[in-house]
């Protein structure tokens, strides 16, 4: 029973913390010099960091950052990528040929490397972070939707729609897109999990949101210098990231089984 509901509970908590974010920003940045590096107690649940700020409050503020970036990036790259993949896959011809080449080039960069380079060159900040991750993220959705459209466009109902004189817009949005939604939802769920790690990773490298704004990644980086004296500074954000990502991955697995989807890898 717990195993079944835990992922939903944790993801909801993450979302709620993100919504509560703006109200805790002030207390997350509140410096109390007397509480520097204080370990967890009953009154200060998760302890305090090297500047005497509440780790719990910073976790909540960091939830906002990670939610905003992960959902923003996946939303942006899913919309752009799907639109490109749909269009190119349906049209075929030189357009499709060019797209396949472009996708190949983007996939030639291992994982997060291109995002690190882009964020590093454009400079830190949450908007550049979202742009850098989206510039890398759209490729997966374009590849997925293109592949699906290739196998769907010769179906009878599409042929019928063409024969009835439906516009291309209608065919793409009414006859093809709904059939793509299930695999896209699964891909996007895993995508959000990946982006939570990516955002924290870039912030860990100092390329994400800048101080005093909180990010789980920068909390781990700051805490790493005080590990012996105050292990809670690293433990709290790390366990939080792990739980959120684990929940999202479990949700993705469940959705995949439920929607009966075999992604091509």
């Amino acid at each position, binding site marked *: 029973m717990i195993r079944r509901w835990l992922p939903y509970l944790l993801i909801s908590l993450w979302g709620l913390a993100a919504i509560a974010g703006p109200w805790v920003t002030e207390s997350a940045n509140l410096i109390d010099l007397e509480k520097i590096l204080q370990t967890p107690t009953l009154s200060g649940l998760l302890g305090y960091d090297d500047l005497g700020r509440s780790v719990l409050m910073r976790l909540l503020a960091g939830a906002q950052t990670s939610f905003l970036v992960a959902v923003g990036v996946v939303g942006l790259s899913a919309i752009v990528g799907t639109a490109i993949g749909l269009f190119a896959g349906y049209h075929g011809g030189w357009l499709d040929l060019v797209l396949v080449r472009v996708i190949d*080039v983007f996939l030639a*960069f*291992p994982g*997060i*490397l291109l995002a690190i*380079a882009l964020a590093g060159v454009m400079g830190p900040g949450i908007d550049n972070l979202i742009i850098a991750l989206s510039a890398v993220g759209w490729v997966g959705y374009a590849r997925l939707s293109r592949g699906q459209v290739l196998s769907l466009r010769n179906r009878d109902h599409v042929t019928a729609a063409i024969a009835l004189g439906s516009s291309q817009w209608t065919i793409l949005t009414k006859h093809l897109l709904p059939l793509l939604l299930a695999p896209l939802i699964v891909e996007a769920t895993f995508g959000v999990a990946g982006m939570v790690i990516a955002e924290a990773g870039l912030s*860990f*490298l100092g390329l994400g949101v800048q101080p005093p704004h909180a990010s789980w990644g920068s909390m781990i980086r700051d805490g790493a210098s005080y590990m012996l004296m105050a292990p809670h500074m*690293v433990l709290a954000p790390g366990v939080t*990231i792990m739980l959120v990502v684990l929940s999202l991955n479990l949700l993705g697995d469940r959705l995949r089984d439920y929607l009966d989807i075999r992604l091509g890898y």
Partner: protein
Amino acid sequence: MGGFILTRLLSALLVMLGVVCLVFMLIHLVPGDPVDVMLGESAIAADRQALRTSLGLDQPLAVQLTDYLKGIAVLDLGDSLHARQPVSSLLASRIPATLELAFAALVITLLIALPLGILAAVNRGGVADLGAMGFSMLGLSIPNFWLGPMLILCFSLWLGWTPVSGRDGLSSLILPALTLGTAFAAILARMVRSSLLEVLGEDFIRTARAKGLDEGSVIWRHAMGNAWLPVITLLGLQLGALLGGAVVTEVVFDWPGIGSLMIESIQKRDYPVVQGCVLFISLAYVVVNTLTDILYGLVDPRIRSGGGR
């Protein structure tokens, strides 16, 4: 057969060209004037002009790209702005450390993933399966920039078994390799499991069992032999991804490889070096992937005939 290899090589070449163009464009994404950003506002006009000329930024874009391509053909990636030496020699001094880390991580990946995957497949639905897949799910969800510090805390600070950071012999290699390898082991273990399960459902396995072979040789001689292919492909893909994932791990452990060079250069706004690092890792990735593709084709005739991906 020759045709198959040629097609693969040609398409790899095309991809590499695209990668070079994209990396070339990086410096043009610097907000404002890259020269201002690199030298700072206070630099004198003559220095600015000198840097602009040496980077070729005063030339038309097409000329810059041609020059960049020409440079790469003779391994000239420009000069570092801070170290006052060619980017290529900076890279060369860091490559061995990154390769060492990637291979060690690959070995650890195999050491964890193979037993785990096989154990899970053989005991499908049992406690071992549940445990192995639970571990794999956990491994996928732990970010390496957290696992690294945690391992340092346990094994370096508390137990004192390994150095905290740096590259000094085998003992300093274990923790970074473990950090880098865990996530990949998690993915690979799932792959080994599903690939082995698929084979175990085939008729020839039933035949092997029916003729009275013991379970050990059914698994090792008959099933694993056929389960290797998808595993090897994934491994090839991962060796490249390891090189990319190494960036964060290298920073955590202060490992003197390409990844930490890249982050150092980003902090110093030494963009030619950043370009060089991205270029090296991506090109290495393309080469490894192409080799895997070709190898796969050599081993399995079904791929050659165009079934492809």
